[in-house]
């Protein structure tokens, strides 16, 4: 019987053990290939205990594949992944005991009531019988669904289902909660309410959260973010540091002739601009001071102008060369096919 490197940290040990104690998730040299498609191309990162860590990237960038490997649902082609001190490949059950999962597609049984779904989970995870009822109440209260516990899940709205899944993921008191696109497909109001629950959860439980998202605004809720593109991590830091690293303001202008404007920007100011989201977009060190010069010297009429402080969007753009929406729109059929394959593969196991 192997002894768990308890993430509660009581286990004393060598230097290596002490390091593992801090990092709840530790990934090195991880790759995953599906036939010819390289979904993950060698990534390394660590997630500290209690951290909310976000994986940010367009669809098909390798986020879901990474989660699948961390959750023991897929084997890495090479590299290692340690979760709560256990190898995700060789100590599956130990990893599974320590993690809670919320997938992007629902994994509830809609023919059962909410309570029956949770009870199923409790039995499957071997939650001690005496703890089942109070814990069930606790997690359902947390997401405000206790009153609806006897309703069939098929009568729940999308947002309620997601909340129930979060509650279920927490039922066995995992050390790490994985949220794969927890708000995808939900309306903005529901999205923000889901985030309210997640933030509340961070306050209440000693838990590490690993999430993926392709919503920039949601990534701001994370303590640290890894930007992943084409199966590689291109940047990893706190949202603030990442934004500071860009150091430039983003200027977007609507012009009468975009092509001419881009050429003029290059010629007059030596600035590389491109059309993103229907506007000529470029970055300059201090946007407010640049705008008057722009109006004075650009030969093309300007209809509107907007200057924004660096956002995660800009971070993404500066590291990958495209906005996340562009990356998804132009990611092409190959990307989409890949994403489809992951999803199909996800269902397979």
């Amino acid at each position, binding site marked *: *019987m192997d002894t768990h490197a308890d993430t*509660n940290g009581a286990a004393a040990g060598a230097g290596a053990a002490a390091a593992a104690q801090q990092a709840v998730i530790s990934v090195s040299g991880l790759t995953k290939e599906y036939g010819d498609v390289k979904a993950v191309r060698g990534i390394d990162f660590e997630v500290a205990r209690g951290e909310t860590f976000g994986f940010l990237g367009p669809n098909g960038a390798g986020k879901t594949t990474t989660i699948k490997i961390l959750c023991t649902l*897929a084997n890495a082609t090479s590299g290692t992944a340690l979760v709560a001190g256990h190898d995700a490949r060789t100590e599956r059950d130990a990893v599974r005991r320590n993690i809670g*999962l919320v997938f992007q597609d*629902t994994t509830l049984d809609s023919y059962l009531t909410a309570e029956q779904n949770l009870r199923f989970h409790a039995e*499957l995870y071997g939650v001690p019988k005496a703890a089942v009822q*109070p814990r069930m109440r606790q997690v359902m209260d947390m997401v405000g669904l206790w009153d609806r516990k006897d309703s069939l899940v098929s009568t729940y709205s999308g947002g309620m289902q997601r909340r129930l899944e979060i509650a279920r993921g927490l039922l066995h008191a995992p050390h790490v909660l994985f949220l794969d696109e927890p708000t995808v497909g939900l309306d903005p109001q529901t999205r923000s309410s889901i985030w309210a629950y997640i933030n509340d959860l961070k306050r*209440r439980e000693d838990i590490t959260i690993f999430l993926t998202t392709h919503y920039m605004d949601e990534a701001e809720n994370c303590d640290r973010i890894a930007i992943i593109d084409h199966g590689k991590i291109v940047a990893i830091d706190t949202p603030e540091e990442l934004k500071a690293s860009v150091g430039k303001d983003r200027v977007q202008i609507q012009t009468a002739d975009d092509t001419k404007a881009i050429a003029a920007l290059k010629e007059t100011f030596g600035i590389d601009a491109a059309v993103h989201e229907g506007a000529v977009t470029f970055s300059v060190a201090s946007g407010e001071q640049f705008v008057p010069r722009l109006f004075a010297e650009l030969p093309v009429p300007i209809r509107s102008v907007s200057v924004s402080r660096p956002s995660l969007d800009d971070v993404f753009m500066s590291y990958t060369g495209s906005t996340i929406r562009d990356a998804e729109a132009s990611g092409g059929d190959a990307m989409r096919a890949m994403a489809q394959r992951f999803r199909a593969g996800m*269902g397979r196991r």
Partner: protein
Amino acid sequence: MATQTTDVTPAPDAGLLVEEIRVAVPERGLRHDLRAAGIVWRRELIRFRTDRLRAITSLIQPVLFLFILGTGLSALAGRGMPPGISFKTFIYPGVLAMSVLFTAIFSSASIVWDREFGFLREILVAPVSRAAIVVGKCLGGATIATFQGIIFLILAGFAHVPYNPLLILTLIGELLLLSFTLTAFGVMMAARIKQFQAFMALTQMLVMPLFFLSGALYPLAGLPAWLSVLTRIDPLTYIVGPMRHAVFSHLAMPASFQQQLAPAITWDGWAVPLGLSVGLVAAMGLGMMAVAIAEFRKTE
């Protein structure tokens, strides 16, 4: 042995909740596996209970066979029957076997369904042995299919089959075994076939030949050689035979009629004992369940 303990302390505003709920997910052990198999089994029952339509529609086909086909063919087939024995009585055991066929297969189809709708993932990421899940599933399917068979057993009187307690118990036992083996077969298929449509098409394609070759509608004696061989390959034969034997041994009739209507299954002239026949079906069920477990152990 280290057991992981997590203290969950709810925030003060959590109302009337207990101060601290200790949730410790135990190391995997037999007790945990039994609980897991138990809940997978129970889910089948809950879903069967809430899906009354399924229970009713699954009965339509055997009822048609027994009352429409059975009555219609009586005039013709009845001539070959001993006096006082109805053709309906003759086909009753086979049709009884049929009554569990679809329910058992359909219950395993829910794995394919669960895969498409994501619920299977919830099961597969649990820290529990794949064997517990598959065993729970097979027993769950076996249980609900047997329920279905029991409903059909209530109609035994209409086919002039006596309500003898010993007979009823024997038939229920045989139905349970048959249902288990059929569910194991379905689960094994469901482990490999990912599309619901394909699964349904394939199983439907297999179910009818299995039924027709099992001797459910005709005695297994005096058949042309080719058909005789095919009937011996059909696994269903080895349970329909014992079921018919059970029914006919509870009817008052001369031994020669019994020989004629419920002959022993023979392999090249050697009569297969009932015990071996039933044992074969059990062994097949267990074998297919083992294959299913191995399939579910694989990881992408």
